[in-house]
């Protein structure tokens, strides 16, 4: 405090001219920040046809993105990111009039609000059986027929008007296929009623008139999907999965024809699954790992054309000329993929056969889409767009990968960081040392820029020099700790290491433990933890991360662990666990090789310690009685606290398995409170001091505990969407709970408020965001918690002599005496995520990073969310930095850290401290990725990158010269005086 008033006196003059806002100049964009755009796993791809003359492909993805990609480079031409509720089921390009300019660049999400986009209609619905039929004409209008949600609609291309609709929902029909025979105005809708009745509807596409309706029962029942083979024939499987059914409905007569699979292939491999394809006369079945391609010769004759053990993908049919259909077949053989393009009616000949070397870390081919082009010699060429297991997208043409996109990065599950190697001989990867001349040249340019002598070319050269600074993408640790590796785990089960300097991918690794296998059918990646963080004595070891996954979504599915070296990107080892993983508790202890101890809690509430070394066990047993864990059952509204009891008994007996016992539980009344948010402090957060000095040199002691849990509950009625409840029947309760003892330290009710709640917990405060129904506005509240039992430590002499117990270890079982201060403020935006900046020593003031609904990240000074703000702060309070109270939090446009960019589909914001105390690294991820450096209190501890050393040097030299000259002059003058 004393220091501060001193500073006030001196620095006020400097600060009076400075604005507290942190903002960028235009030429600083891209210096420390980078932004990458992704799409997500491609669900469907449609190529623009020749007629449009554009070399583009339109894709829809699992991240609800529709985008048009340039076929030459794979760049995004346009992109629309829909909300998480607008799931895209299908896209197609409507020809003809749908391409008129007035309907370009818009899209429509549902039939009710029909909008059109660049000839691409987007229909979102919950239904899987979606089909879009284009190329129909009524007079001059093209119509598009869409099947979704059990309803068939015909939509006009001109204005998106619904021409007719037919509902199948009421007829309990499970529609399997909607088939339109080419060149006719008929539509067949086929499906099953219950499990054994096959139904067929024939509809006039022009007016929706029902022409025929036939049904036939099949005693064997049906299994799974049907695949259309001809315009009036489909193939299905019977309920056992052993017999293939050819169902034809020619002329309205339904006939079944059974072919046991054992007739086609000698050895049986168990129940089959149909892989649907739109290729005429050809379909494929899959039995375990064997794929069989079957050709339908005529109505009933089936013939096996290929049987392979390789993973096979079949593309949809592509009509290349009148009556000719081509399709692609991709097979995966260890290091290569084989692409074959064939004509539908001619299996034996290949139009194209290529082998492409494929990186193993991309996994298997999931989907393939083909497109043809006309070569200069008028023959057909084909290009194939393939979607890989790791969600990446590649374009193959002429046996080569033309471009690839790492779209798996659009679905990041978890992020952690790793240090880069220390610079040693032979370690440095990038070369940065340039000669003195270049250094001088660069600085002369900068000098020119500073002195405003630079020409526009020079300015451009300076800017490109700053942006291309090879220093920032170097592969070694830097003094300031700006260069790190961001290790990200994607939904596809792939690990990426991104360099914080420019965002390039250093390595990527498709985790074998998170791939489909016989033991693990539906692996899910869960979390990433730092496993080994070498420093001090274990400096020579490489750091590694722990990836935790589990098989299947159920809570008792067995877990899988993987340990990956973050320097090399190689898997060190992997473990398939026998127990499930319900909780992962990183313990604050390490063994002698700096491996972090982790406690994994399974569904049966047994605790398992990793690593399983004797040393780890002995460390753990020393702290045994001080380790607790809690579980939050948000469905039942119960929070339970547990302690460890002893070694496991029973059949799971193991050295590293421990039994637990329940200590306490907090049960929320289920009819009035539902848990919607829990937040704890970040484990690695560093707090500089326990004291907060307030006006007049008073001290308040912060209640800083790692074991505090913030829980927000809402009334059951308030847990629905905003606007559906009245303020009287909705409330929000915030709790601060000690997770060791189960003590509720604070409870506050916000009447007339409801979720969703986003919160962030740091030091001794929590900030949460919710909706205030009474005020019809979003609100942010802050709770600060202080330790009153320490407040008596005021005797200066005791403190000087160190005779106090402020730093001695405390037990949470000692009776706490806390007071809280809280305040609420209105906030304009709804929020997607909140984070807080973190620095190495925790001295720098904090900023809240708010991910707004507009997918931007806003930095808001924590001072605005100070509960001690008053309308008229006293002089002393002003000196402390308390801002006069306002009812709403200001949104200063310059404080958007994402400046002009958007992080589409923003899901999370991660902050990592740099080594430099003033600076924190911020990584925001969603469909896009964004990274930047922030200095919440400005970079008070370093010179900026563009500091002109040359200018400083020149100034010093000039000053020295001036001193020398004036000294000689004065000497001479004195001599002359003396002679006079």
């Amino acid at each position, binding site marked *: 405090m004393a220091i501060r008033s001193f500073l006030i006196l001196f620095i006020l003059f400097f600060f009076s001219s400075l604005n507290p806002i942190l903002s960028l100049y235009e030429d600083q964009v891209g210096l420390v920040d980078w932004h990458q755009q992704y799409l997500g796993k491609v669900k469907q791809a449609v190529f623009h046809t020749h007629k449009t003359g554009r070399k583009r492909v339109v894709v829809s993805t699992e991240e609800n993105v529709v985008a048009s990609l340039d076929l030459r480079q794979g760049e995004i031409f346009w992109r629309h990111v829909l909300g998480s509720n607008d799931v895209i089921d299908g896209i197609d390009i409507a020809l003809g009039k749908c391409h008129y300019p007035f309907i370009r660049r818009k899209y429509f999400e549902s039939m009710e609000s029909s909008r059109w986009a660049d000839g691409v209609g987007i229909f979102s619905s919950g239904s899987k059986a979606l089909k879009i039929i284009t190329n129909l004409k009524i007079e001059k209008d093209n119509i598009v027929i869409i099947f979704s949600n059990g309803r068939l609609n015909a939509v006009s291309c001109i204005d998106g008007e619904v021409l007719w609709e037919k509902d199948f929902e009421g007829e309990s029909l499970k529609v399997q296929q909607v088939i339109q025979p080419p060149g006719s105005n008929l539509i067949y809708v086929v499906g099953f009623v219950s499990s054994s009745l096959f139904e067929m509807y024939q509809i006039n596409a022009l007016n929706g008139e029902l022409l025929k309706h036939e049904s036939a029962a099949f005693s064997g029942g049906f299994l799974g999907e049907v695949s259309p083979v001809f315009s009036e024939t489909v193939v299905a499987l019977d309920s056992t999965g052993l017999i293939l059914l050819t169902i034809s409905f020619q002329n309205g007569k339904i006939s079944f024809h059974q072919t046991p699979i054992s007739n086609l292939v000698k050895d049986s491999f168990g129940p089959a699954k149909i892989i649907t394809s739109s290729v005429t006369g050809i379909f494929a079945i899959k039995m375990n790992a064997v794929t069989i391609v079957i050709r339908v010769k005529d109505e009933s004759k089936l013939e096996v054309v290929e049987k392979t053990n390789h993973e096979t993908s079949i593309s949809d049919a592509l009509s290349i000329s009148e009556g000719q259909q081509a399709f692609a077949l991709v097979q995966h053989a260890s290091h290569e993929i084989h692409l074959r393009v064939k004509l539908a009616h001619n299996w034996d000949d290949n139009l194209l056969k290529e082998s492409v070397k494929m990186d193993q870390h991309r996994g298997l081919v999931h989907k393939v889409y083909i497109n043809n082009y006309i070569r200069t010699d008028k023959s057909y060429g084909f290009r194939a767009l393939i979607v890989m297991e790791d969600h990446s997208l590649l374009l193959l043409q002429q046996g080569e990968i033309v471009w690839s996109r790492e779209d798996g990065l659009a679905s990041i599950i978890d992020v952690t960081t790793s240090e880069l190697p220390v610079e040693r001989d032979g370690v440095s990867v990038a070369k940065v040392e340039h000669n003195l001349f270049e250094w001088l040249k660069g600085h002369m340019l900068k000098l020119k820029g500073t002195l405003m002598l630079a020409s526009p070319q020079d300015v451009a050269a300076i800017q490109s020099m700053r942006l291309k600074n090879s220093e920032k993408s170097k592969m070694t640790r830097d003094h300031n700790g700006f260069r790190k590796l961001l290790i990200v785990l994607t939904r596809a089960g792939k690990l990426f290491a991104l360099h914080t300097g420019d965002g390039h991918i250093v390595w990527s690794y498709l985790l074998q433990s998170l791939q489909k296998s016989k033991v693990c059918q539906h692996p899910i990646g869960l979390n990433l933890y730092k496993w080994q963080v070498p420093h001090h004595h274990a400096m020579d070891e490489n750091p590694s991360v722990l990836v935790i996954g589990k098989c299947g979504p159920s809570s008792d599915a067995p877990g899988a662990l993987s340990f990956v070296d973050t320097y090399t990107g190689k898997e060190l080892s992997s473990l398939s666990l026998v127990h499930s993983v319900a909780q992962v508790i990183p313990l604050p202890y390490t063994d002698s090789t700096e491996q972090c101890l982790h406690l994994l809690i399974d569904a049966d509430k047994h605790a398992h310690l990793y690593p399983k070394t004797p040393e780890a066990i002995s460390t753990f047993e020393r702290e045994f009685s001080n380790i607790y864990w809690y579980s939050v059952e948000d469905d039942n509204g119960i929070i339970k606290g547990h302690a460890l009891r002893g070694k496991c008994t029973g059949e799971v007996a193991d050295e590293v398995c421990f039994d637990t016992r329940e200590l306490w539980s907090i049960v929320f009344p289920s009819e009035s409170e539902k848990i919607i948010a829990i937040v704890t402090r970040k484990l690695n957060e560093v707090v500089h001091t*326990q004291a907060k000095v307030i006006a007049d040199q008073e001290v308040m002691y912060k209640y800083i505990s790692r074991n505090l849990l913030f829980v927000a509950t809402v009334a059951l009625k308030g847990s629905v969407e905003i606007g559906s409840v009245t303020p009287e029947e909705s409330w929000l309760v915030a709790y601060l709970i000690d997770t060791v003892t189960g003590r509720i330290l604070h409870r506050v009710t916000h009447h007339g408020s409801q979720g969703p709640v986003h919160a962030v917990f740091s030091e001794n405060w929590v900030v949460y965001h919710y909706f205030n129904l009474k005020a019809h506005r979003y609100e942010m509240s802050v709770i600060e918690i202080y330790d009153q039992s320490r407040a008596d430590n005021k005797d200066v002499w005791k403190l000087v002599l160190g005779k106090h117990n402020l730093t001695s270890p405390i037990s949470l079982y000692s009776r706490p005496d806390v007071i809280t201060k809280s305040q609420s403020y209105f906030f304009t935006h709804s929020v997607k995520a909140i984070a807080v900046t973190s620095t190495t020593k925790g001295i720098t003031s904090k900023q809240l990073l708010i991910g707004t609904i507009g997918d931007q990240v806003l930095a808001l000074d924590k001072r605005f969310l100070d509960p001690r703000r008053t309308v008229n702060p006293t002089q002393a309070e002003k000196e402390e930095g308390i801002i006069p109270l306002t009812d709403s939090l200001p949104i200063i446009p310059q404080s958007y850290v994402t400046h002009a960019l958007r992080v589409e589909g923003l899901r999370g914001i991660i902050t990592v401290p740099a080594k430099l105390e003033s600076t924190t690294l911020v990584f925001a991820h969603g469909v896009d990725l964004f990274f930047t450096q922030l200095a919440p209190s400005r970079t008070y501890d370093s010179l900026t990158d563009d500091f002109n050393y040359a200018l400083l040097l020149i100034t010093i030299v000039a000053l020295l010269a001036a001193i020398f000259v004036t000294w000689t002059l004065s000497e001479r003058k004195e001599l002359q005086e003396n002679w006079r």
Partner: protein
Amino acid sequence: MEKGKGVMGAGRRWAVDFSDNSTAPSSRDIPDPPGFTRASVDQDDSAVSRQKKDAEANWKSQKAWEVAQAPFKNLLMMGFMMWMAGSTVHLFSIGITFSALWQPISALQGVGKVFEPYKDNKVDLLGPKLLFIALNLGGLALGLNTLGLLPTHASDWVSSLSPAQEVEYSGGGIPL
């Protein structure tokens, strides 16, 4: 110059060296002038000069103490002025604060110079010097105190105390 040289050089007949304190007659052959007895002069002179010297020393030490106490008045005045100036950031108060800082510092720098006139091998200057330094340090402390640089509050001692460690450790959350 030429003249003087001649006198000083060869033409000197006799000389009395007053600084010669030896009781024996002058080393030269020439006897002492009549009425000049070396011993009595010494006797007489020592009594008078000692008295004189004592008085001078007394006076010097008195003066030294006075000088040493001078900053006290300064201190009072400074305190009064600071009180008048108040604690607001103002051109006047900044000036006062700076002078309050500068005066003791410059005075401390010139401790030797201040006490030079009173330098005497019979006067003990250590006491006054220490008092002078202490008073000036007091003045400096007053100045620093107005700036708030003296750690006199509890907040100055606890502001960098790291948080106390907790014995227990707990983790968990919503099951994965």
